[in-house]
């Protein structure tokens, strides 16, 4: 990790603002390891974040970074990608950011198969505001706004991404950090909308209220509850309770938005070889 910090953190950006035991740093490490392993040029990488604990990572790391408004990271990223299709665009969001306020943008960025690499760090709560329940808070959990236990059903966000048209859908956890790195690499290889949910821990906002104050215990829970997708499928009904699949959940081939756009604009008479180089 020290060399990753030296290479990829902006000078003077530490100390960070995350609580002790937070999973965001682990997920960020997985991301940076992928960047390093693949030898990606920092100048060609854009990281767009929404608002929340996980999205705050963007101001620490030395890429082209855009810290946007709450829920809207995907819409900003859409504009950036369309203006600069040559850049590799990552979108970093938390569960509240991506599934509640930004849910509509998630559906439509996936539907368009926009060539974006989305990483949702799901820590089950709104961490930045002190641990309120989100659409991904497990039913029954106690949070600052569900002191008697959340009575709402949890959203299946990877299922939503798949249904909306994402062409690569995967899940990992903070514990499975190597898997996270591999999935990010596979997501980059997919030309289209790549969606990865990483289940993470918030001991401060979630664990303490749900008899799991110890971050290590939360990581243990991730380890024990996660099953590789291919094994999860074979579980007898009943045994799946309390478990969730990790790895690649869904893959499909479909032209991304820009490919479709170039086809349309050619039909409209655009000389795409000289695209965007001049006006009338």
């Amino acid at each position, binding site marked *: 990790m020290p060399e990753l910090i030296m290479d990829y953190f902006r000078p003077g950006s530490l100390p960070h603002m995350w609580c002790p035991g937070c999973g965001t740093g682990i997920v960020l490490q997985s991301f940076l390891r992928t960047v390093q392993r693949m030898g990606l040029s920092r100048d060609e990488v854009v990281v767009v974040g929404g608002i929340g604990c996980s999205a705050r990572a963007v101001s620490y790391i030395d890429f082209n970074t*855009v810290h946007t*408004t709450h829920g809207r990271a995907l819409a900003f990223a859409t504009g950036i990608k*369309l203006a*600069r299709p040559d850049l590799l665009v990552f979108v970093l969001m938390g569960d509240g950011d991506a599934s509640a306020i930004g849910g509509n943008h998630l559906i439509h960025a996936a539907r368009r198969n926009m060539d974006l690499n989305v990483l949702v760090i799901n820590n089950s709560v709104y961490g930045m505001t002190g641990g309120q329940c989100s659409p991904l808070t497990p039913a029954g959990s106690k949070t600052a706004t569900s002191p008697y236990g959340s009575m709402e059903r949890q959203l299946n966000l990877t299922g939503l991404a798949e249904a909306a048209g994402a062409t690569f859908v995967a899940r990992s956890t903070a514990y499975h950090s190597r898997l996270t790195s591999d999935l990010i690499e596979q997501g980059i290889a997919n030309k289209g909308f790549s969606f990865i949910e990483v289940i993470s821990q918030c001991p401060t906002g979630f664990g303490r209220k749900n008899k799991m104050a110890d971050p290590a215990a939360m990581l243990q829970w991730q380890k024990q509850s996660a099953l590789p997708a291919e094994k999860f499928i074979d579980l007898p009904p009943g045994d799946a309770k309390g478990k969730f699949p990790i790895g690649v959940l869904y893959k499909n081939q479909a032209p991304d938005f820009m490919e479709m756009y170039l086809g349309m604009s050619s039909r409209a008479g655009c000389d795409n070889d000289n695209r*965007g180089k001049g006006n009338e």
Partner: protein
Amino acid sequence: MARVVPMARLMQGNEAVAEAAVSAGVMFYAGYPITPSTEIAEHMAKRLPPLGGIFIQMEDEISSIAAVIGASLGGMKAITATSGPGFSLMQENIGYAVMAEVPCVIVNVMRLGPSTGMPTAPGQGDVMQARWGTHGDHPVIALCPSSVTEAHDLTVKAVNLAEKFRTPVILLLDEVVAHLRERIVIPSRENMEIVERKKIPEENGSFLPYRPEAGGVPAIPDIGRGFRFNVTGLVHDQRGIPSNDPGVAADLISRLLGKVNNNAGEIYTSDGYMLEDAEIVVVAYGSVARSARRAVKEARAEGIPAGMWRPVSLWPFPAGEIRELSRRVRCIIVAEMNAGQLAGEVERHAGGCPVVSLGKVSGELISPLEIFRRIKEVFS
């Protein structure tokens, strides 16, 4: 080479906005259909793809302005168009563009509000929303045309001002001007002043993206050009890194306000009609100014020394001109299709000169006769 002679055309206000945007170099449009602005989107959908530009219909107005800001950060001149309800939805991200200093143009075709109101009826009820719609203290540039030709010219100017001052610029049309079809002669592109964003030549390690240059405007590079910096809506230092330092906050907000207010002389635009010896002045803007002009003519025919003053830049408001007028006229009548939004602003600068508000909130254009009657009433 044959010289291209500009031809007179019959054109709708919304169409003129779209044509002007293309002439000004706008190659990105993101929007969501809403009456009475939709023709702008439809026209851009037709015009941009053959030119290699991007048109995208987004899922709502929030994402439309977000995509516009993203594209502008990527180096494209970008525009969106909407109407009242959509303009309300855009407000948070307009503030983001102010804070992150991202050039963009928002066209708001005003219809009667509040809420869904009367979608096909004209209004001018968004004058104060344009000024104060997003939270916090922020600069605003808002321009208001009263003819199709002016809709064209002010669109070019809006794009230019956005690029020059690196701030969102709002073009406030009302439904009448947007749907009006009239004669327009579009100047050739060589005869238009087009402002291009300052290009930063090469990578420089010590470069500070948010360090102000002359006039308080920083030369922020487009992203992906070798400068790796942070863009944020948080209070940030000159590197773009978030800061909780009260001094950094005060400096930033003051500079953002100052870069528009201290350069307001370049932005102020107004128009006068028979003001030299006027004793009664009608202040009007947008389509209402056309009625006001007629009313002044009728009043003059009856020997009443009336005149008209029309602010074209509503924000920043050319207050100095009102101060000057108020010292030499007997009364100011502010005619507008709202309950007196600009009348309050005029009153603030009019000293002791009486200001009469002639507001209308019925979704109808104020007629010349209504203004004429008020001039007569005030005069006698």
